[in-house]
């Protein structure tokens, strides 16, 4: 399986800018530096595409910077193009302002990935509060790993490396793990982090089971 990267093949439709933003609503965060609302953001807010900026996410401060719109044909039209462009460049920084503590599962995931992959960049986010699980859960995570150990590996092989490092957590409390893997060169070319799509409720009968 080919790895990441822009192929530059004009014969194929370019959908590089397509992200989960096409299927998701960006999560607003408190404690972020205020930014002037863009006309597009206002339009999307008016359409109900962006929730009011009153929700507080524990532990992370998300700073958005607008990136150029993706190029290439987009099947789904202008609205989806707006959503794609809103993904932008994302810079995550750990907030030390007491927004939340790191739980034991999150700490274990971070430690194990650092030991197994020696990453240059490791972004780990507990997304459990965005899902239908009790507060304080550590069941849904998103991780972005930049490591030279991914050189020459297909996306499937890279993800399996991450799974292998976290086998105990995945067999235990972790219900969902969204993974982005890049080599240092790929990260330099595209340091954009994906966001997860919104939770659709899961199965209430088996909530908490992966």
């Amino acid at each position, binding site marked *: *399986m*080919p790895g*990441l*990267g*822009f*192929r530059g*093949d004009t014969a*194929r*439709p*370019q*959908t*590089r*800018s*397509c*992200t*989960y933003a*096409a*299927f*998701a609503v960006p999560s607003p965060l408190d404690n972020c530096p205020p930014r002037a609302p863009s006309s597009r953001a206002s339009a999307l807010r008016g359409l109900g595409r962006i929730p009011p900026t009153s929700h507080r996410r524990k532990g992370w401060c998300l700073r958005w910077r607008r990136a150029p719109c993706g190029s290439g*044909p*987009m*099947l*789904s*039209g*202008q609205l989806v*193009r707006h959503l794609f462009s809103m993904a932008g460049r994302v810079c995550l920084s750990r907030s030390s302002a007491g927004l939340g503590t790191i739980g034991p599962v999150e700490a274990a995931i971070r430690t194990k990935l650092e030991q197994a992959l020696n990453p240059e960049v490791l972004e780990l986010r507990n997304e459990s509060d965005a899902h239908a699980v009790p507060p304080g859960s550590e069941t849904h995570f998103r991780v972005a790993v930049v490591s030279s150990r991914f050189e020459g590996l297909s*996306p*499937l092989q890279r*993800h*399996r490396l991450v*799974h292998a490092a976290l*086998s105990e957590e*995945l*067999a235990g409390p972790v219900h*969902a*793990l*969204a*993974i*982005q893997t890049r080599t240092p060169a790929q990260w330099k070319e595209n340091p954009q982090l*994906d966001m*997860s*799509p*919104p*939770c*659709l*409720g*899961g*199965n209430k009968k*088996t909530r908490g*089971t*992966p």
Partner: protein
Amino acid sequence: MSGSLSRAAAALLRWGRGAGGGLRAPGVRAAGSGGDGGGRSAAQLDTLVKKDKVVVFLKGTPEQPQCGFSNAVVQILRLHGVRDYAAYNVLDDPQLRQGIKDYSNWPTIPQVYLNGEFVGGCDILLQMHQNGDLVEELKKLGIRSALLDEKKDQDSK
């Protein structure tokens, strides 16, 4: 803006016509009655994933996904105009849910199989969609991605 909206509408109409005149749901196939009582053996699952060119294991159904990641898989396939695929709802069958994870040695749902081969979850499918690999993989299966038609329309204008 009107141009892109009309192109999107035209794409949707072609999608409908390609189905034989109307919008219809993907070929959702149930994973058997489980009457044998033996759960989901590797052999059974092997047959299941090879029965159709495109097989996905989801939480929920394509019409009503119950997981954001499963929904993403459904939407990506929809964007490419893949309409005839087998979708199995693991929420209806706990044995299938665990069995498919053991079969693929992949701990999460959704799971995507192309031509009987495990491709990955929704993160990998999204990557393939982003870098154009999905179009090529579908082409190998004899499935022409709708995005190629969209590009052709744009090039001709």
